[in-house]
């Protein structure tokens, strides 16, 4: 097993995912298998290779004029929110 339960719990914490006690062994097993599988990349000869982040290397980020193009649609967007009041998105108390 390439990943320990401790490591998987740490990853879940970083990813902000709750994994139940019952599910944890399955995640440890399957994530380990995935990491073992991608481990084979280590054998590839890549000494002088430039990393490729994007399929169209020649493509440059475009800039646009600094003009207002979007109109206010707050009500429409807030329609999908789980909890709102007076135009604000509500979350549990953050500051004591």
């Amino acid at each position, binding site marked *: 097993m390439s990943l320990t339960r401790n490591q998987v719990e740490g990853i879940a914490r970083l990813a902000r*995912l709750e994994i139940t006690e019952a599910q944890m062994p*399955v995640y440890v097993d399957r994530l380990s298998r995935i990491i073992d599988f991608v481990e084979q990349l280590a054998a590839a000869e890549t000494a002088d290779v430039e990393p490729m982040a994007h399929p169209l290397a020649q493509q440059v980020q475009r800039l646009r004029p600094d003009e207002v193009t979007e109109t206010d649609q707050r009500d429409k967007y807030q329609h999908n929110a789980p909890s709102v009041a007076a135009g604000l998105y509500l979350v549990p108390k953050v500051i004591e």
Partner: protein
Amino acid sequence: MHTLTVSEMSAGLRARKFSSLELTLHLLGRIERLGPGLNAFVTVTADRALADARAADERNAKGDGGPLTGVPVAHKDIFCTDGILTTCASKMLSNFVAPYDATVVRKWRDAGTVLLGKTNMDEFAMGSSNETSFYGPVRNPWDQTRVPGGSSGGSAAAVAARLAPIASGTDTGGSIRQPAALTNLTGLKPTYGRVSRYGMIAFASSLDQAGVLARSAEDAALLLEAMAGFDPRDSTSVDTPVPRYTAELKQPLQGLRIGLIKEFFGEGLDPAVERCVREAIALLQREGAVVKDVSLPSLPLSVPTYYVVAPAECSSNLSRFDGVRFGHRCEQPKDLLDLYRRSRGEGFGEEVKRRIMTGTYVLSAGYYDAYYLKAQKCRALIAGDFARAFGEVDVVLSPTSPTAAFKLGAKTSDPIAMYLNDIYSIAANLAGLPGISIPCGFVNEAGTELPVGLQLVGPHFGESRLLSVSHQYQLRTEWHKRAPKGYA
């Protein structure tokens, strides 16, 4: 009427043989009767479809309709549709009503198409069998005990079963081509940047690309024409003219140089699938194509490279689902961290959580160089192999998938076995290249006839060639015309 291709429907509408309303009612009836057994749709938009059809009929009556005015379509439920539920087949978005149209949706709508509904898919497009959907698996119309492929499995099943003449899909590692192969369809993934990603819910942004699942290359060309093009709202959209794909279908096979990817005709390939593909190659050769073997030695790295790059991008993209502004929120969160962890833990399915965690791990401090940077270098090797091959040949050819459709549940407990379904399709995404899968025969498994697809991959923006080769092949074969029993 449901057996007509898009081109035939278009001609029929133009000649007033039937109205869009008649056509739409007929297909809605089929969806109601045959859709539930396949679980192909998440949402059927009947009212919208009838309104679209009436509007199309008015336009056509006035004579200002285009070739697609009144043609019914379905969209994969990954595309945002203004005012319509858009779930990405996830519990996370099971209550999400999109506040705007994706560019692909808007363009097809502007072309006058009629929206029949939103198709089922693997959750957040993560899967190769359509079994990770929150709404349950889609069944393959060729054999309901088998998967239709994924992630665009609902679109594939709907088009194969003649519930819709054509549907949109998205392809991050094979999600259009593999289901097309498993359901006897023509599935086109365009070049990265050819079709706008605006309003298409992101999985892996450097790999995702929208395309079509169609019953012929001609239909795919027609709909690609209507969806491709520059979009300022997608920062990776490429500003290059859209060819008249339909006008270029006549390019002859004579002199076409085809490279057979040596690495994709080896171990793991079902011999019966290989026989179908070899027969198709022989036909292309008889018609004047020049065939040779080409070696792309880095291609065996595709699957492991993808399973670092795609989860890394997914873990970043899916961080937006936090239970605050939209999507699922857990009951009674005790603090903000609890809100995040339980909303995400409950809202995402197992495969999605696994990929977010894989991505989080490969991007984390101390592992970035070993996994993510290494995978980006392997990606460059793979892209370099294709670039060299296209110095010698016009297109490369391989099977689309190593086997025909497999049984539901056969691979759900082994993520690696599932990932290896996409062994022949993933490389094109890593290199950003266009690819197409076309029907090329059938294999017999325990008395059941199952379709087989072959894949063509071309250089960047080489869609015209892929479509013309496919069209020329389809003029000489009947495979793509076969319908599954009970759906003809």
